[in-house]
């Protein structure tokens, strides 16, 4: 037998998988050496998740072979894959929501001492094992899931977007623990959209594109461009960065009525005093660290929640939304980060796009199917939705799902679009398509409010940005001045001359939340300290 094969801890080759007409994997291969952290990269829909599911036995491949330590094997369930040394931490925690942590551990035969050890390493040492999983915050669940996987000492550990829902200091701990796996006998397969993390912990990267392995790259400082190139396949036209020009254009004469104006909006203890004006024809960015009240702000604007104080004006007149339908009627439409909140996952692309405007136009009576088809086709075209799997939205990739949520509003003609981190977890190509679309909307004199956790999006898309900290607007910055350091300082509510906290590295805002804040986010929900402390940095009183 080939000698080379035994050098590899895990070798998969020629893996293919189709779901009906949709090809998820064409010919994927992956070779992992012992003691390496191996990145699995690819745009959304490239087949990363399918490959991981196949490796862990959750999905059966149509063809291909998988060998662990040189021995060929096929797993038919996660339990079987686990016995051959492959364990995955999935994007959604695999903990039983109604059982306490101790029972969850027992269910998966996890050695409890080892689990406690890893939990400590990962910064959650104080966890009460009798807490019910349902009552813990997502970040804690993901850490518990990881500690559970580490405790059984798998040969190959697969981490699928492990850091996506984590605050900064937990992310740091996770990266630290993952990095320490290097050089031993065990390996880690690491999936992340964040290049910095890849650069920080990975030795090599396998890049997938459209279900095929298109390259394996040694990760060095200069490999980022190469990886992006491989992922994209073709060069995506860069969004013109003309922030300076836009900022000037955005300055308005005093007599223009803002499309949407908030006056001292407040909501419980989360949102204290937020005021801003959003004018037609502009994209206004909203920047904030996690949990500064932006969730409540968007809930209020989209009609899901009533403010406890303040006033909301649309086209100069006061409005009060008791239901999202009221907001939609006033022309305020909402695009959420979580596609599952917005879409009817079992229904078709066409029905999903048509839903909002059929309910609006044809309140009673029959739906004009011809008109519906035309508008849907127009929207699908505008957004370049890959609708091959259009029969059921849940079978589209995340990026295409997000395009559907935007398309449904564009098809009906949009006046004001509220976007809450619309590009979260989406590949670069779809991201830039969404940027172009938002600019086009603004050019057609729609108004767009864009909360983003990626600071560079502000200069790419927005005319200006407001920064929220502790439930208040603490800064308003023109796009021309809104480079990442400036936004970051403002997001931490620091004066412009103050130094950034040392822990801060490049990445998204969510990653950079302060250590103190993060501790609270990670602690079980019922033990978190009073709200007032959230987001305060040490030495930030001045």
């Amino acid at each position, binding site marked *: 037998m080939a000698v080379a094969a035994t050098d590899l801890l895990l070798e998969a080759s020629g893996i293919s998988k189709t779901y009906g007409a949709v090809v998820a994997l064409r010919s994927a291969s992956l070779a992992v050496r012992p003691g390496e952290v191996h990145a699995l990269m690819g745009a959304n829909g490239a087949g990363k998740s399918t490959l991981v599911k196949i490796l862990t036995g*959750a999905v059966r491949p149509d063809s291909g072979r998988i060998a662990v330590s040189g021995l060929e094997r096929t797993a038919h*369930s*996660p*339990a079987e894959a*686990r016995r051959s040394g492959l364990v*995955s931490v*999935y994007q*959604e*925690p*695999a*903990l*039983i*929501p*109604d*059982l306490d942590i*101790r*029972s*969850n*551990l*027992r*269910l*998966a*035969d996890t050695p*409890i*001492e080892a689990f406690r050890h890893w939990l400590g390493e990962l910064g959650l040492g104080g*966890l*009460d*094992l*009798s807490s019910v999983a349902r009552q813990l915050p997502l970040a804690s669940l993901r850490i518990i899931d990881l500690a559970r996987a580490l405790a059984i000492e798998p040969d190959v550990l697969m981490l699928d977007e492990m850091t996506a829902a984590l605050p900064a200091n937990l992310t740091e701990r996770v990266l630290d623990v993952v990095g320490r796996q290097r050089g031993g006998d065990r390996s880690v397969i690491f999936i992340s959209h964040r290049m910095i993390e890849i650069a920080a912990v990975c030795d090599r990267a396998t890049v997938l594109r459209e279900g095929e392995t298109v390259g394996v790259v040694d990760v060095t400082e200069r490999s980022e461009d190469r990886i992006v190139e491989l992922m994209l396949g073709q060069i995506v036209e860069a969004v013109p960065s003309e922030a300076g020009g836009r900022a000037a254009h955005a300055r308005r004469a005093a007599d223009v009525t803002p499309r949407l104006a908030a006056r001292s909006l407040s909501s419980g203890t989360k949102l204290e005093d937020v005021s801003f004006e959003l004018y037609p024809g502009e994209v206004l960015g909203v920047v904030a660290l996690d949990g500064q009240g932006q969730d409540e702000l968007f809930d209020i604007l989209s009609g899901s929640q009533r403010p406890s104080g303040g006033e909301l004006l649309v086209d100069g007149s006061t409005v009060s939304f008791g239901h999202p339908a009221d907001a939609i009627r006033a022309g305020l439409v909402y695009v959420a980060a979580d596609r599952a909140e917005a879409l009817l996952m079992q229904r078709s692309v066409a029905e999903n796009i048509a839903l909002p405007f059929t309910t609006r136009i044809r309140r009673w009576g029959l739906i004009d199917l011809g008109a519906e088809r035309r508008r849907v086709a127009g929207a699908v075209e505008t957004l370049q939705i890959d609708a091959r799997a259009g029969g059921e939205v849940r079978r589209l990739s995340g990026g295409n799902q997000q395009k559907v949520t935007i398309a449904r509003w564009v098809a009906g003609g949009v006046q004001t679009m509220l976007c809450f981190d619309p590009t979260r977890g989406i590949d670069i190509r779809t991201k830039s398509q969404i940027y172009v679309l938002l600019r086009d909307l603004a050019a057609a004199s729609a108004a767009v409010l864009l909360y983003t956790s990626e600071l560079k999006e502000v200069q790419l898309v927005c005319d200006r940005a407001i920064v929220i900290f502790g439930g208040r607007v603490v800064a308003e910055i023109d796009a021309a001045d809104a480079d990442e350091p400036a936004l970051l300082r403002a997001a931490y509510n620091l004066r412009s001359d103050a130094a950034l906290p040392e822990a801060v590295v490049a990445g998204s805002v969510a990653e950079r939340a302060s250590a103190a804040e993060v501790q609270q986010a990670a602690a079980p929900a019922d033990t978190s300290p009073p709200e007032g402390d959230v987001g305060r940095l040490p030495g930030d009183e001045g």
Partner: protein
Amino acid sequence: MSAATGTVDGVRGRPVDELVAWTRRNGWNLSLLAILVVLLVFTKMINSNYGVSSIQGLAISVLPLALAAGAQAICVIGGGIDLSIGSMMALTSVVAASQMKGQGEEFGVAVVLGVLLLGLVLGAINGGVIVVTRVPDIVVTLAMAFVWGGAALLVLKTPAGGSAQWLKDLVLGPAGVEWIPKATVVLLVVVAVVWMPLRRSKVGLSIYAIGSNQLAAFRSGVSVGRTKVIAYALTGLFSASAGLSLTASTGIGNPVPGPYTLMSVAAVVLGGVSLAGGRGGVFGPIIGVLILVLIQNDMAFLSLDPNLALVSQGLILIGVVMFGSLIQWRRSRR
């Protein structure tokens, strides 16, 4: 896996905190118990003759229904529902009655064991069909209700048969103290022997797991199909013991199913078991059965139209569940 893992505790709270936590966890059952006590007091108030013999009668009439509720609770916790419980009770009851008639006492023991095994098999068939065909639980068990019901009529055309004397003696009459009916003791023993160890076992955890989140259970290494079959088999076992209790208390086997299936669903809902699966236990539904039966009795004592009793039973069911959700909602907001 080891039993020791359960005892490696982290930080132990003060006894008072633990008591509070325990009360919180069992809040629903404790409230049901309180309602039950109030109902008993009310019953005594409207009917001063309510005494030992009434309690004995209540215990006997409640036993089959309580076991049926336990049966339903297990498969609902596992994320399913079984509409064939009443039919399985009828089938096991007539099999027991027809086999025991005219036979010796010792043979009765073999019949009882055989019928319990039959229950396990019937349930396992229900579960197996659901897992293999992937037809929804509600459809499969509805269909199997006809199958088992028809089979019961094949065994006995009309109510007939007999019961071993020891089996009757097992459930009829008081257990030593006149206030404690044997039927209640039997109920507690069955639950203690079958349910309590199960709940703490890995199989029990797996049943809760597949009911709570099937995908997470699968990814935690639980065999979802096997666990489902086990859950339905246990439902069959409880149904068989409910069927046996019918034979024991009436002395015959009746091939026509009583209103047990729907009552068991009602009791499960009242007993704090989430129909979405993964939450609750067996004790709540059993207390729920007592409440439902007592309400019926009280309506009779008040000489109200029995049809009105049915109407009020339905309304009470909705009211209680709504009240429960309200409490949960308020707690989650705090």
